[in-house]
């Protein structure tokens, strides 16, 4: 799938939830945008999201794409971030049967995948039940 440059280009989004904020209507976006989805304005500034949110929906994956097979069963969720955007991410450090819609979660940096034994390790955001 994506190679070295593609993954590198996403590092700020993946490591720090780097998004954008519209200078016109103040909507906050993740992923970062060039055009505001709300008002179509193109003057946007960098904005880092806090990583605090709640679970909107989740699923437990029993059959996955090959890259993630090692982690099966794992939980993926749609998370409502406190600044407004909703994000898709894995949940970690939690038993699948303890996940609930509405659960408060926080962002952590974890290994997302690897490009084989010789390739890059891809780090990025996952979410876990809040301890901070």
């Amino acid at each position, binding site marked *: 799938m994506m190679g070295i440059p593609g993954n590198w280009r996403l*590092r700020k989004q993946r*490591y*720090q939830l780097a998004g954008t904020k519209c200078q016109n209507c103040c909507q906050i976006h993740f992923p970062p945008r060039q055009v505001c989805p709300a008002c179509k304005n193109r003057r946007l500034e960098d904005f880092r999201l806090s990583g605090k949110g709640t679970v909107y929906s989740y699923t437990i994956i029993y059959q996955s794409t090959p890259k993630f097979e*090692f*982690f099966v069963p794992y939980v993926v969720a749609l998370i409502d971030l406190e600044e407004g955007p909703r994000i898709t991410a*894995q949940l*970690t*450090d939690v*038993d699948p049967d303890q996940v609930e819609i509405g659960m408060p979660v926080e962002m*952590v*940096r*974890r*290994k*997302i995948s690897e490009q084989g034994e010789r390739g890059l*390790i891809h*780090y990025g955001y*996952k979410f876990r039940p809040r*301890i*901070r």
Partner: protein
Amino acid sequence: MVNTGESSLAEILIPDRPVGIVGYGAYIPRYRLPAREIARLWRGTQEAEALPIDQKSVPGPDEDTITMAIEAAENALLRAAISPEKIRAVWIGSESHPYAVKPSGTIVAQALGITPNASTADFEFACKAGTEAMQAGFGFVGSKMADYVLAIAVDTAQGRPGDALEYTAAAGGAAFVIGPAEEALAVLEGTFSYVTDTPDFFRRAHQLYPEHGHRFTGEPAYFHHITHAACKLMEGLNTRPQDYAAVVFHQPNTKFPLKVAKKLGFREEQVRTGLLAPFIGNTYAGASPLGFTAVLDEARPKDRILVVSFGSGAGSDAMSFRVTEAIVQRRDRAPLTRVYLRRTKPIDYATYAKWRNKIVMH
């Protein structure tokens, strides 16, 4: 107390500019493998008393030295309350860096918003890789080359299946923001390093698991180096064991630190707060640093703390600190070490073997 002969202040290491710990942070993964589980597979029915610790911490399948370093460092930055751009070096000590070539520090620095105006490097010296990073930090800040350094000590240690080390090789670590003494919650009084070529435990390049010298790792290695480093430092500072509120030793198991404490004249109560091995095992480069964070979590202003690491190969770094008033306000800005200690999920040997890649798939 060992008689090391004449020594003066000049022999111990003290930077020109007073320095200290401005922020500290811990991280321990959630999973625990009971020692009994390992014994179940590899030693039939051994009595519980024969096991070196109760349980060890195991990193989850999505964790490694880099992910743990990021969280420990985040906690340290929260306590320090300085903006990441002020950090001018990120030095990480570990024996389980994910890349053989590509410093863990680059990823950690990027993730924390410290890049690009910083130096990063990976340190290795078995279990004292982290305290070395701290010493380098003391020097960098102490020489006024920079005001703040992030020194991180983290490991996801591996033990060969069935080997004695497997019982204790664990995961976790700590991070320290080192800065000027006026801003510190613990001021460095002095440090001392004692190093010899003593091959008690080592790993050749490309080998998965280390070799160790069994009983040779005791007297000639652990005890010799810790004792000399601690004694030299206390002589140089003119301090005695009773001057310390707490002492933290490298802790490969529960027995060794208690034994060396007694030998040096410390009471068991002084060691207990910083002794985490019974609950999480040996976190290698993270071991004495994590113990140090547990002590800081409970320290009071004016307390003196002694930290003595040991790295196989071999060497020991001794550090003496004085806690300041600042600790009171900063302690609660990030999760206490006990939050991570208490966050546990037991796993079985099969899960552990899968996660730690001990199952060879052809």
